[in-house]
């Protein structure tokens, strides 16, 4: 079938103004999904090609970036042909507790200003690589693209509560990796083992 015969083509100007302006965002999203530059470039290219050929399905005035992300994600999932199902172990209570413990651990090791101090790029990459795509993509949408939880949920086709718990877990995993990295390079001081550093919660 001729792919071009059944679509309404946008003008070059329109497609540049509406769609191609989001190329850096789509490329970043693709990179995060695939974790490979070559695969990410292929995915970004395919995304824009699909968008161009299916322009009739884009509603003028709606959020084109969100539409492109949805195409990108569908293409990625299709290439993965994943039969696996995510077994949800999302437990907000555990995540809240873990978040607090991580902070106390960092503070006790003198790492409370870690994120302002050192080049965390390599450790950050490592943390992202070690994460399932489901977790990486919520970080991407919320922390980089500034999506609301509701918008991320709509884009990913999951409930808002799942966005929240995946996001919290992903952030926790990243923090863990960064704290371990700081320890590895000798930034942490030995943890305090004697009394006197106990928190008093109001």
């Amino acid at each position: 079938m001729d792919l071009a015969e059944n679509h309404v083509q946008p003008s070059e100007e329109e497609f540049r103004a509406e769609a191609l302006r989001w190329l850096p965002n789509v490329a970043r999203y693709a990179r995060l999904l695939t974790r490979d530059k070559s695969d990410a470039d292929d995915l970004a290219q395919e995304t824009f090609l699909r968008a161009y050929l299916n322009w009739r399905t884009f509603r003028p005035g709606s959020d084109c970036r969100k539409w492109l992300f949805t195409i990108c994600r569908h293409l990625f999932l299709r290439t993965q042909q994943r039969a696996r199902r995510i077994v949800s172990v999302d437990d907000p209570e555990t995540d809240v507790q873990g978040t607090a413990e991580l902070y106390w651990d960092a503070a006790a090791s003198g790492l409370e200003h870690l994120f302002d101090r050192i080049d965390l790029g390599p450790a950050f990459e490592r943390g992202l690589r070690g994460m399932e795509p489901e977790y990486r993509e919520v970080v991407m949408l919320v922390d980089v693209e500034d999506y609301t939880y509701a918008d991320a949920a709509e884009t990913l086709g999951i409930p808002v509560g799942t966005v929240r718990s995946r996001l919290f877990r992903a952030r926790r995993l990243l923090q863990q990796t960064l704290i371990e990295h700081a320890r590895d390079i000798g930034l942490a001081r030995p943890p305090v083992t004697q009394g006197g550093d106990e928190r008093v919660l109001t």
Partner: protein
Amino acid sequence: MTPPVVEHIPCEHVIRSVWDYLDDEIDAERRERIRHHLELCDHCRDQYTFEGAFLRSVSRLLDGDAGDESLRDRIEAALVKHGFDKPA
């Protein structure tokens, strides 16, 4: 006229909501209560500062990971094959 009373909330609830608060995913009343708590509580404020710095570093580190010009050229070349540079 008496000033509005901000009801006290415990640290545990503040820590539970710290990321919702940073992400602005919280209703106005709860936001105000947390803000008030953070003004008064050093421990929670320290953790809030820590999590905020983390989120800024995530955004900063990922923000640079975008497509380059060669990718743009490549995509446009692919689009041209489907009539991209022809009048609509």
